[in-house]
């Protein structure tokens, strides 16, 4: 992010800007910083929501290391993100490339591909998915028509995971739009120059399009990873974490510890760990792509 330097005009105090962003300063302190710190502190207590929290130091975290449920949830979450995010980026990039072609009726196609993402996590969509993937649902009927064996989407671990991945993949429109915008911003002259130099469209894609999209790919990667690692709605409504915990994400673990078992201290320890894991994953992404934090 480039910093925009603007010398305040005559008569404008240097506190004017500060005054304007006051809502954000208060909001950040009250709704992000406070709960963040609070969560860290609660993570070191035993707390059932009724009697006062009891300080137990790092005990929750030691317990966490030995908790099979946590280990499983972490593995499920990482696997889910590793499966969904690359697929989603790939599909949305391909779709954006197709939509970037100058053909008639592109508006219709753009809307068609974008609409599922605005419905997003809407519960209606999750319910729809439930029906599509039941044993006699549309998906299995189509599989039968194609001569394939129907799949037990709710009964087996891998299909259950895949069903949830497909739901989120179906909503690739938001990432697609970001790619599309970036594609439109690439100067045409680059392609013209490449063509004059005898560069084919595939090589133009590799040497012009991809490098120009680097920062957008990165932004999408980070945003999608953060979202994927927090997944809660879909497994909660579709599979309830099953079968055999194969779709039991960290989000579900936190929710059930907090509101199912009232282990509020432990729930906060898990959620803080989740924050740390997400932070670590994002940091690795910054490192691997050779970016500094402030360049996103």
């Amino acid at each position, binding site marked *: 992010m480039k*910093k925009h330097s603007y010398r305040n005009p005559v008569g404008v105090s*240097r506190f004017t800007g500060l005054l304007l962003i006051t809502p954000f300063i208060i909001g950040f302190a009250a709704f992000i910083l406070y709960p963040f710190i609070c969560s860290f502190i609660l993570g070191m207590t035993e707390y059932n929501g009724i009697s006062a929290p009891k300080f137990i130091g790092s005990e929750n975290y030691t317990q966490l290391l030995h908790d099979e449920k946590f280990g499983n949830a972490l593995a499920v979450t990482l696997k889910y993100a590793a499966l969904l995010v690359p697929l989603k980026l790939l599909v949305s990039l391909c779709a954006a490339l197709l939509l970037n072609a100058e053909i008639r009726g592109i508006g219709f196609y753009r809307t068609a591909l974008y609409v599922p993402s605005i419905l997003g996590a809407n519960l209606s969509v999750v319910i729809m998915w439930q029906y599509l993937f039941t044993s006699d649902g549309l998906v299995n009927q189509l599989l039968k028509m194609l001569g394939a064996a129907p799949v037990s989407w709710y009964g087996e671990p891998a299909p259950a995971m895949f069903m949830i991945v497909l739901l989120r993949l179906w909503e690739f429109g938001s990432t697609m739009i970001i790619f599309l*915008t970036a594609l439109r911003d690439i100067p045409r002259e680059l392609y013209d120059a490449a063509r004059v130099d005898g560069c084919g469209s595939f090589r133009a894609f590799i040497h012009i399009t991809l490098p120009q999209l680097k*920062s957008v790919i990165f*932004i999408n990667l980070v945003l999608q990873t953060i979202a994927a690692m927090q997944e809660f709605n879909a497994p909660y409504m579709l599979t309830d974490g099953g079968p055999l915990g194969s779709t039991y994400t960290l989000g579900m673990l936190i929710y059930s510890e907090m509101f199912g078992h009232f282990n509020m201290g432990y729930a906060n320890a898990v959620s803080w760990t989740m924050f740390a894991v997400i932070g670590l994953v994002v940091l690795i992404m910054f490192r691997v792509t050779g970016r500094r934090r402030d360049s996103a």
Partner: protein
Amino acid sequence: MKKKLPVYLLLTVLAVIMLYPLLWLIGASFKTNREIFSSVWFMPPRIELSVYKNAWETVTPYTMGHYFLNTFGIILPKTIFAVTSSVLVAYGFARFDFPLKRLFFAFLMGGMLMPSIVTLLPMYLLWSEVGLLDTYIPLTVPSLFACEGMFVFILIQFFKGIPKEFDEAARIDGCGTFRTLIYVLVPCIKPAIISVAVFSFLWTMNDFLTPLIMIRSVDRYPVSLALRLSVDSTGQGYEQRKIIAMSVIGLIPSVAVFFAAQKKFVSGITAGGLSG
């Protein structure tokens, strides 16, 4: 033309995959249980609007209308709060220099990376401490404080696209900081404001976890929780089309708002330099 055919073909296949589930859902709302699970074709054999009349009544003690009013009771203040506060904050960041500006901007970016579930648990405890659980305050008030970094970010990008000469001209004509914003800049960033409002609407419509945690009484449920309640309280042999019709009804506001704002909205997000 020859080269364009594969593009059309691929796009058409993709569009069918994307839209068919929705068509199927609408069709299924008119079908009997047997018909739903025996044909892949979406067209129902008959269309009886009474299904929707039944679905409107829901399987819960209240009608869909009641839940919609609840939902809009959350969305309306939330969107107004979010737009107002985000515009002010974005204006401050985009147009003025002030102490610690870099730090606060880093906070803005950092907040966007914060997983919402981490902040949700302590907020739940806080709201329960002050006795405001089961009201809409936990759902709406945070928006007064520009908490959605993404909104501020989109608006900042837009502000930066307006030449500073506009502000200067306004200032020479005697406009203060505030009047410059209202009369000169806000009209220029209208597409971005509409984008932010639409996003705020859609995200609130889709939000499930926050109301699930904060709202307890069924009579205060938004549509999303009411749908879940209906799914949970009906079993296998139940008339599925009623639930399906309720789901269709639940999608209408989002689709309507999207299409009403589509032109401005799309130009808002595409020009908004989310790609920045």
